[in-house]
């Protein structure tokens, strides 16, 4: 009698476990699906240096790229308030022309390391829709040497 009760509860327990497992699998599959389509459908971009970009210009033509490099001194053309900003970034060996129409981050300047992101068409300046600045040297600034 008691044995029968035990088996009944344990089979039901098993059934619940199976259903819970099923729900967990559904959630995991949904997350997997979201991750996959998220990666395919949204603007995932190739993160490259300037030379890498030029080396594989063919394969990334027409795709979103994210390029890191230093702003070349003297290359910034700000124009009037209405014009987009133009500048070049370099990784030491090659240079890339950038056009950007948004608000520049506060810490954008010549010589700073920036990461620009946008659509790449080979042979054209990159139309950036985001410019990130990185400035290790400044957040960990050394004190100004006594001038004079």
């Amino acid at each position, binding site marked *: 009698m008691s044995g029968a009760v035990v088996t009944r509860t344990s089979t*039901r*327990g098993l059934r*619940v*476990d199976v*259903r*819970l497992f099923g*729900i*967990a699998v559904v*959630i*995991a599959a*949904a*997350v997997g699906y*979201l*991750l996959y*389509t*998220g*990666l395919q*459908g*949204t*603007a*995932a*971009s*190739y*993160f*490259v240096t300037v030379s890498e970009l030029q080396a594989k210009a063919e394969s990334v033509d027409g795709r979103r790229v*994210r390029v*890191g490099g230093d702003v070349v001194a003297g290359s910034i053309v*700000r124009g*009037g*308030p*209405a014009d987009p900003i133009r500048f070049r970034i370099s990784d030491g060996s090659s240079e890339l022309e950038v056009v950007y*129409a*948004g*608000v*520049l*981050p*506060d*810490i954008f*300047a*010549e010589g700073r390391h920036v*990461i620009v*992101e946008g659509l790449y068409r080979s042979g054209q300046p990159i139309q950036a829709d*985001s410019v*990130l*600045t*990185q*400035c*290790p040297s*400044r*957040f*960990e*600034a*050394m*004190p*100004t*040497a*006594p001038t004079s």
Partner: protein
Amino acid sequence: MAHLGSGALILALILAIYGMVASLLGARRRVPELLQSGYRATYAVAFLVAVALIALVIAFVRHDFRLAYVAGRSSRDMPLHYVIAAFYGGQEGSLLYWTLVASGLGALALYLHRRSDRTLLPYMNATLLSVVTFLLLVLTVVSSPFRLLPVTPPDGAGLNPLLRDPGMMAHPPLLLSGYAGFTVPFAFGMAALITGRLGSDWLRAIRRWTLLAWTLLGLGLLIGAWWAYHVLGWGGYWGWDPVENLALLPWLTSTAFLHSVIVQERRGMLKVWNLALLLATFALSIFGTFIVRSGMLSSVHAFAVSSIGHWFLSFLALVLVVGIGLLVYRLPGLQSERQIESVSSREAGFLYNNLLLTAMAFAVFWGTTFPLFSELFWDTRITVGPPFYNRVVGPLLLVLLLLMAIGPLLAWRRTDVRLLLHNVRWPAMTGIVVGLIGLVAFSRPWAAAAYAVTMIAAGVTLQEFWRGIQARRRNARENVFLAAWELLRRNNRRYGGYLVHLAILLMAVGIIASNAFQLERQFVLRPGEQGTIGPYTVVYRGLEDRRMADAEIVAAQVDIYRGQRYAGTVESFRFFYRNYEDQPTARMGIKLVGMDDVYVVLDRWQDDGMASLRVYVNPLVIWIWIGGVVFVLGTLTLFWPQPVPALLRVPQSVVGATSEA
């Protein structure tokens, strides 16, 4: 001061190692004196770290530029509160602060639990001190805040302008306390695993300490969002930046823990899972602290890249190996006392909640570290941006909100579905009406669905409050306000939790609106000219130059009209700080008109006053900050001291109530 500080740190390091060894030896050989001495070592370590920190603050206040750290982050013309806040403005100081919070909270936990959990405490102490030892090792060997400069400069470089903001006073200390605070529950968890005392007696302590760290981290995140909104001119409060994501991760896993620990307390289930969450939370805190300094991910939080990354990576590996190893070793002792009996029970509901929260954490982790892994496997670094996160986390969040609506109505063991439907009918109908109105009025299906779900969840939560209040009014003959007060005081865990749910729902109102209905336009205007955005007209009045002790300021004045009616004037600034003239730091002009934030960024300008302004209209963002206030109230309720254990109290009040009736 430098000698005092570094001396205190070295002494603290020695004591921490001693205390660790003493605790372990004392516990193995059963020598109470050794254990006592181990605890005293922890108190002394906390004291010495505090001394070091105070020495550093004094060095800042006295402008002691012999210290490289002080000279690099402060200057004589900075206001005093930023000079003091500058002590956590860099890596060394923030790590020192981390160490202080970890050792200080650890010492407090030892003191508060000194009469209970006797067998756990030595191991808890040893775990705590091993974390502190690691941090002190980094602080004394690799990156000491007390390093001296060969030549003392006459003035310091000053704090980076981006950090000179009221947000600096609150965001970093809260966030770092949150990270560091997870050390204490982690230490308790490891102690439980080492001793094999895996019953529920340690759960109360762990839950409370996790709650503390979770609250601090949550507040840190919120104030960080507020800061970003005011200072970084992209019109938003959350950019899915790697550093933000990494701070969100331990918050998500600890939120999961705070829910699933209830199941373990009530039903003795999910033990392995809870310990794994605890371990993951602490590991993610360490990961978040370390990876921003490793230079492995590109972020707006441009920390200095330093060698410290390797230390943290090794420590992280050690934590994971020891933690997972112990968990596997103790697996046989961690069997559930009961099984889940039904897929619609409350324990199953908590399980779904946990699955969703960890799935969200996983998705965010995946996206954040994807550049690293894609480089490893496919030889190209692929980065993902905000659209990816919105697309992945958005639907999960929606399901989680739906669960928040149903969860409070589920019963332990088994739920009567008819009763559930009966209870949810009014909130569900309200939600569906709201959704349909939204669909017709705005034709944005996603936003309408999100508002419908938010409305249902809010309805259910408020209904729970109302029922609790009604029950008290009937039984204890209290008026509405007294009943609400007593409900929160006596049943603080349940209704404090619901307050936090309401806070999340209020934030959801703002988050959905600002994602779906944000307007953005760029104007190039001469003084006196105007532009329109949505129902608003902005009139640019011109630029004004001002001067502060440490900066020159350009202010653009903009009048805002809604339709024909004048709504107010905002000023949007650019600050040119001394030493940072090439970094014109923005302060947004934000004007709340009705429920809309009109948000003005001064972009560029010419000498004749012509300027380009970027204007955003962010609807309902104010509800995010209102939700933040409710969040604070809810967590305060959760910490409401319970003078007499609840078990003793319940029968008394019932007796009192019946005799009155």
